């Protein structure tokens, strides 16, 4: 068990800043998911922590000890690579045993260590196979077992489920959290899949353009995203964003969408007069009778995973997605309906920089 601290890490390749000002402090045994779009520096960050690449500025501390200049073999870290990086000339057993043999462990203790993790990951029957004889799922588990075998203080997992099929990914998403908790290691887990991030994380650190834009619990990030980009990354279908210019009204702040004037409450006063994006998650949309709500026409209805996603168009041409449990579905294509949502479900973002404005901002 260990605490990992990253202090203002920065890394650039050939003058291009890849990571800048990365700071993070984890609790012991915490699972932090590094989440972000591709090419944003997630893997680079793990490689810096592992010591495979050198950082330009900043410091990495494990349990208060500065390991910034410590060689990768002395950092007490386990890492599973996205491409597995198994040793092709060794059996699965020897692959998994490598962190143990590196510590001069041998004989029964080593065998027990390997068998322990192998059983946990259900690969104990293929231990004598060479990596090329393993299926992708088995390779992935072998790589994971190798990372776990040395009981490292810090476990770095670089998108380990990326290269496995959907069924296995689903299984592993369920199996991994207890497994990781059991290992006791502090885990940094990289993924591009927001569902995976939300399923595994104690906290999610959202990495965009080489910076952490938000570090918070899954729920917090979903309900209270710090910016438009964060809001867009989480959720399927993605959040509805409607261009509005909030103005002062008798009771607070109001915006017009289509035929309707919506009162946002006084909390959003900071947004008055600035072009803004009004965000509402498709799940928060309700489709009802035409009168009362925002008048819209149903364009199409798509069933999606027990839910029905409805595409609607307001009178001024704004397209809106609504996602409802399939059995609640009422709207038929080409019918006129009204869209309703609650004020609490509204997220306001600045149109120019995407930052959150008004109530809840900066939370």
């Amino acid at each position, binding site marked *: 068990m260990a605490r990992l601290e990253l202090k203002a890490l920065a890394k650039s390749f050939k003058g291009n800043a890849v990571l800048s000002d990365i700071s993070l402090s984890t609790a012991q045994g915490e699972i932090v998911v590094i989440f972000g779009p591709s090419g944003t520096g997630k893997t680079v960050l793990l*490689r810096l922590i*592992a*010591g*495979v690449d050198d950082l330009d500025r900043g410091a990495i501390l494990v349990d208060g000890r500065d390991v910034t200049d410590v*060689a*990768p*073999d*002395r*950092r007490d*870290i*386990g*890492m599973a*690579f*996205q*491409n*597995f*990086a*198994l*040793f*092709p*000339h060794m059996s699965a057993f020897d692959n998994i045993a*490598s*962190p143990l043999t*590196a*510590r001069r462990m041998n004989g029964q203790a080593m065998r027990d260590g390997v068998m322990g993790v192998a059983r946990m990951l259900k690969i104990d029957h293929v231990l004598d196979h*060479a*990596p*090329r*004889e*393993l299926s*992708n799922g088995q*390779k992935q588990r072998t790589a994971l077992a*190798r990372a776990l075998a*040395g009981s490292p203080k810090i476990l770095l997992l670089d998108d380990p489920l990326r*290269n496995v099929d959907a069924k296995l990914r689903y299984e592993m998403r369920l199996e991994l959290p207890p497994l990781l908790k059991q290992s006791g290691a502090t885990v940094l887990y990289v993924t591009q899949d927001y569902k995976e991030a939300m399923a595994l994380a104690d906290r999610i650190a959202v990495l965009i353009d080489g910076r952490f834009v938000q570090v918070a619990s899954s729920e917090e990030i979903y309900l209270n995203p710090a910016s438009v980009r964060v809001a867009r990354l989480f959720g399927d279908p993605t959040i509805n964003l409607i261009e509005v210019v909030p103005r002062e009204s008798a009771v607070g702040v109001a915006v017009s969408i289509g035929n309707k004037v919506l009162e946002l409450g006084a909390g959003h006063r900071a947004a008055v007069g600035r072009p803004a994006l009004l965000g509402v998650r498709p799940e928060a949309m309700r489709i009802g009778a035409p009168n009362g709500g925002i008048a819209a026409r149903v364009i199409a209805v798509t069933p999606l995973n027990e839910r029905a996603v409805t595409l609607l168009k307001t009178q001024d041409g704004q397209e809106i997605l609504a996602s409802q449990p399939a059995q609640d579905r009422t709207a038929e294509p080409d019918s006129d309906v009204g869209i309703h949502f609650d004020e609490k479900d509204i997220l306001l973002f600045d149109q120019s920089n995407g930052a959150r404005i008004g109530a809840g901002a900066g939370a």
Partner: protein
Amino acid sequence: MEHVSTTERVVRGILIGLVLIFFLFPIFWIFLMSFQTNETILRIPPSLFFEPTISNYKALITGRLETTAGDLDIAFMRNLGNSVLLSTGAVLLSLLLGVPAAYAFARFRFRLGENIAFTLLSFRFAPPLLVLLPLSLYFKQLGLTDTYVGLIWVYQLICLPLILWIVRGYFEDISPDIEHAYRISGNSWLRTFFRIAIPLARPGIAAAALLAFIFAWNNFIFALILASASKQPVTVGALAFVTASGIQYGQIAAAIVLSVTPTLLLALYAQRYLVEGLSLGAVKG
């Protein structure tokens, strides 16, 4: 399996047969020659049928060459020993220097790195004769003329670039992540080099070493200029068969058979290391 029609198979067999005959017939003919006397070799028309004799091999091994103009001493076995010693020594030294260098060029970017690598390759561009004249002067000064050390050193001009450039490519093909994973497992840099990089590049190292050995073995000009009779390899030693009483075709053929044998054995032995695809399946492509 793909479907192949009978005619296609027959045509393919005939074509492969023709190619094999084209390449293997000279070797086969030399093999036959090595068991004949000069008279049977030179008779017209040539015949596949003759009374085999081992006199050529006997002459080579005992070092007594009996010609019509009298007996002649030949140092063929010594030449063969020199060839083995020089080629083996040169390849071992090249491996010792070239494999770590190849790794460095493959893994690290350093100042002038590419220039140094290219300079080493350019050793192969220069005509040996151009290099030899100044080299023989240097060697006289340094006292390296007619020494094994000097010859092995000169042979580096042949072996080192070959090994460096072939092995470098193999190292570059190994995913660095495999080495990183081994280091993170708790192994030092040196251990990673010996346990991961070298075994994974073994097919390349074997191929390069074999090729370097063949080039070194077949070299003629370096030893001709820089070594005297006692240090000369078979390539130079074969000149002794051109005698006052004529060219000893039978002995030449036997000498060729004997001098091809070590290389052939080495190639057969190295073949199992040449099998590629060891690293397939280790990393997801």
